[in-house]
């Protein structure tokens, strides 16, 4: 298992020779290159399938839908999950704690949370996507429609008629 330092772009070639594991370059939409271990990149099903198809590993992968800030955070997740073992109870607990802290930090900045969610969806990083969507779903739980609209900046666009219908349904429910 490689011990590459994720986002460190420098000395990638040297590391590659030392570790014997391939390094993969991911490029954000701002043109910033992130060099990650293959194990880390394989967290993304999108990249995994491209690597397995024997595609452009050397050229790197441009990610036109992801900005640098988001990509850095996504890579942080992938490094943790791709480069670390999760065999023992302790290792799994450590990963669970990482996830908890990771999502707590993201939850504080909703806009960024949505960016990371979209990136996780685009890159098909299942674990990260489940983590962020569950976090957003938890925000919805226990709120009234008004509170939900406020929390998510959703515009109220139901007509009085829609509202009546829904009210009627609510009395059944």
């Amino acid at each position, binding site marked *: 298992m490689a011990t590459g330092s994720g986002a460190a772009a420098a000395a990638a070639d040297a590391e590659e020779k030392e570790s014997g594991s391939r390094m993969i370059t991911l490029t954000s939409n701002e043109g910033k290159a992130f060099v990650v271990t293959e194990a880390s990149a394989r967290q993304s099903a999108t990249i995994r399938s491209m690597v397995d198809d024997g595609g452009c590993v050397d050229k790197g992968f441009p990610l036109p839908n992801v900005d640098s800030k988001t990509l850095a955070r996504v890579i942080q997740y992938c490094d943790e999950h791709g480069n670390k073992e999760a065999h023992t109870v302790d290792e799994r607990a450590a990963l669970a704690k990482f996830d908890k802290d990771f999502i707590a930090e993201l939850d504080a900045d*909703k*806009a960024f949370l*949505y*960016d990371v*969610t*979209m990136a996780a*969806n685009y890159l098909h990083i299942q674990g990260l*996507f489940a983590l962020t*969507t*569950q976090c*957003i*779903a938890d925000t*919805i*739980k*226990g*709120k*009234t*429609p*008004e*509170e*939900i*609209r*406020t929390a*998510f*900046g*959703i*515009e*109220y*666009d*139901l007509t*009085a008629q*829609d*509202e*009546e*219908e*829904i009210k*009627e*349904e*609510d009395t*059944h*429910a």
Partner: protein
Amino acid sequence: MLFALLQTKFEHKRRSGRSQEQTMASKKALAMQPGKKICMTLLPQDIVELILVRLPVSTLLRCHGVCKQWDGIIRDPQFAMAHIQCAPRRPLFFFQGENLVHLLYPSEAILFDEAWSPSKWVVPVIEPDDFLCASCNGLICLYSDKSTIKIANLATGECMHLVKPVRNSKTDHFSYYSFGFHPVTKQYKENADKMGMEINLDLQQTPDLDSSLRLINWLEYRRVLEILCVNLDNMHEVLTVMNNTTGAAHNKESHVADQGTSSSAVGISGS
């Protein structure tokens, strides 16, 4: 009429005055920072769906009123299917009404929530002489001596009465009925198979069901995995819990409603 509508709108505005102000404030913030996303509506619909699908039905019922997009998503039958796939199952216990040692026990159902505590808020659907004859996708089919078969949704307390086939009235028995869901045609079928009569319940297309009932039906059907149901492997464990929580429970016969793997096949015999 128009006045009434306006008044409702006004009422609504007054009630939600604070949140509207906040929305306005957040809109202003958005306008001031055009590059900054703060709005969930910027998430693509497929992601919103994948978020909503993680919510329990009780929350989804509230989420209708959030906005048109959410309402549309929640009403979508495909969303209902997706929700069925991923919602957790919940155990339901049904106690058949019976006469034991000259004491009459009415029928009773207990639904367990995520925390394994019995929740009884759905129980009014069950009448004392009901008999659970089938269950499918969270809907249960209740039989009684009356002239109708009842399809009930325990989670919402909704129920629907279906007239029994007339020919059955003299020699009627609960075992004549079964209830199932056809995965291909997406129809619920209640089947009085011994008499060779079938009642098709096409919950989407039956014109005499009003739209709200149709909606509730889709919700019922989404509820599936919410109320359903332990499989028999877990039954022993559940019974133990039951005995601890409700003292008299062990006196009565209990049925575990289970969707089973072949729910689709139930009630679609070729007779």
